[in-house]
């Protein structure tokens, strides 16, 4: 009974996403621009015996897209739907309440997949990638990171009282993480003290572990990152559940 509404809402939400220039830019265009720009400048720089910068840069771009979807797109959508009263409208229909939330998560996962395919295709064509990891493990870790960042997004969307505050808060958190995690500028370029400080930025762990897994590292070597992401995921879920409202005021 709930499958059909989820299918229809998913289709409708994807269309809405495609009509949102801001989200489209950050999901599809911006990562490709970064890829071409940083790839041309640092692409061939060797990272190890076998890998070049471009190979590990995939992790940075994936992390950037996931962070943007989670920290900007989700809070804005949530606050917007609440402020406009769309959620109130859903409440006076028989659709189960969780359907809306499930659809939001599915849409953001789907948009990440589109973005990742595009990034990989362009990178492969232009720079020729080398992948030495396990596809399932890398995908699993990315999905886990998505869970954490999307949950943080729902928490921000719940804490923000209006669309404007959701947008400001989401963008602020996103840009701070983006620049301090090495998703924008590789952390290897940072001075030593800044590298130590930014070791504690959650998105750094997403970037570092993804790139390590990409180059064939075992996931078992990164339990500290997994624990950190799990803790953040749990905290974000608690806040999101606690602060979630169907109606403004």
């Amino acid at each position: 009974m709930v499958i059909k509404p989820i299918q229809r809402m998913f289709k409708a939400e994807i269309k809405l996403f495609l009509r949102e220039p801001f989200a489209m830019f950050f999901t599809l265009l911006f990562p490709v621009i970064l890829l071409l720009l940083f790839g041309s400048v640092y692409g061939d720089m060797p990272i190890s015996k076998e890998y070049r910068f471009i190979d590990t840069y995939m992790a940075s771009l994936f992390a950037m897209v996931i962070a943007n979807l989670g920290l900007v797109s989700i809070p804005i959508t949530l606050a917007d739907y609440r402020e406009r009263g769309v959620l109130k409208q859903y409440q006076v229909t028989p659709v189960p309440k969780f359907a809306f939330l499930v659809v939001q998560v599915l849409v953001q996962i789907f948009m990440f997949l589109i973005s990742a395919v595009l990034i990989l295709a362009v990178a492969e064509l232009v720079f020729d990638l080398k992948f030495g990891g396990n596809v399932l493990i890398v995908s699993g870790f990315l999905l886990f990171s998505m869970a954490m960042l999307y949950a943080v997004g729902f928490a921000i969307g719940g804490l923000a009282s209006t669309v404007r505050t959701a947008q400001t808060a989401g963008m602020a958190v996103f840009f701070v993480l983006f620049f301090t995690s090495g998703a924008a500028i590789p952390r290897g370029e940072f001075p030593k003290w800044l590298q130590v400080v930014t070791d504690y930025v959650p998105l750094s762990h997403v970037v570092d572990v993804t790139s390590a897994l990409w180059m064939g590292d075992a996931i078992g070597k990164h339990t500290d990152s997994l624990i950190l992401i799990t803790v953040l995921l749990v905290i974000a879920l608690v806040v999101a559940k606690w602060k979630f409202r169907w109606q403004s005021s």
Partner: protein
Amino acid sequence: MQSVNTSASSSEENREHTEWQELAVEVQHLHKAYEDHVAVDDISFTVKKGEIFVLVGPNGAGKTTAVECMEGLRKPDRGSVRLLGMDPRNNREKIFQHVGVQLQENNLHPRQKVYETLEVFSSFYSDPAPYSQLIERCGLEGKENDFYGKLSGGQKRRLLMVLALLGRPKLVILDEPTSGLDPQARYNIWKLLEELKRQGTTIFLTTHYMNEAEEHGDTLCMIDEGRVIAMGEPKKLLAEHQMGSCIKIAECPNLDEKKLKTFPQVGQVEKVDGHFLLYGSGKDFLPMITSKLGKEGVTADQIEARKANLEDLYLLMTGRAYRKET
């Protein structure tokens, strides 16, 4: 609420079962206060199956709060609500299969096309009505590919009416369904509602148009300051208040409200903006009052008579001053 005592709970169930066979809505001692004011102060009413029930009252009287408590959107402080025998806060998914709701605000996504919205909302119901027919009945044919945000205010209102009717509801709760509609749209929406009533749908609505309430309402409930101030069949309410005719008399030095009240068959007297409004009923009310006034020196051109209507009763009971809205 579940009772520990099984015999008590079963008799309760039986009572509810028999009642909801005739009642579509049952609101009992509803009470809802916000931080700074009491919005709904002990309101009770019942809506019989198959009737058109109209809730009226000034802005800020508590209509929307009462309606949102009925819809389960707000939690009442005290009192209970039953829609088709069920508590709307506990049986949302079940109730709204059979209860169509039009909220007061037009709440849809501006960048969603009309047909996309309808596709989504249709999928929520186990037996949705084909929306093309409803679109046509609400005068929105040809608008399917328009963005919701590009529709006019009246079109948005009518699309929300379509959404309320999508699930073939047994009961509809409409908060100001005709506000912002032009006379053609109002006429057609009422034609549709009357048709739904003939097919057995129960219709609960709020409005500010007293002529609509008078013409279409089987039961009228007037609320002010969170309380019910009048309830019943519109014609009977007018009769109860002796409001058959309304005579408007220009102010004249010989007359005052006290004197006018002593005239036979006079129900209510009001002094408004330099004239008197005299309400009364009875077979020879008009000629009798005219001759009485003639004796007081009031000439025929200073007298205007017409049929009293629900708006007169409404203004008499709720006053003519603007309301402070909170």
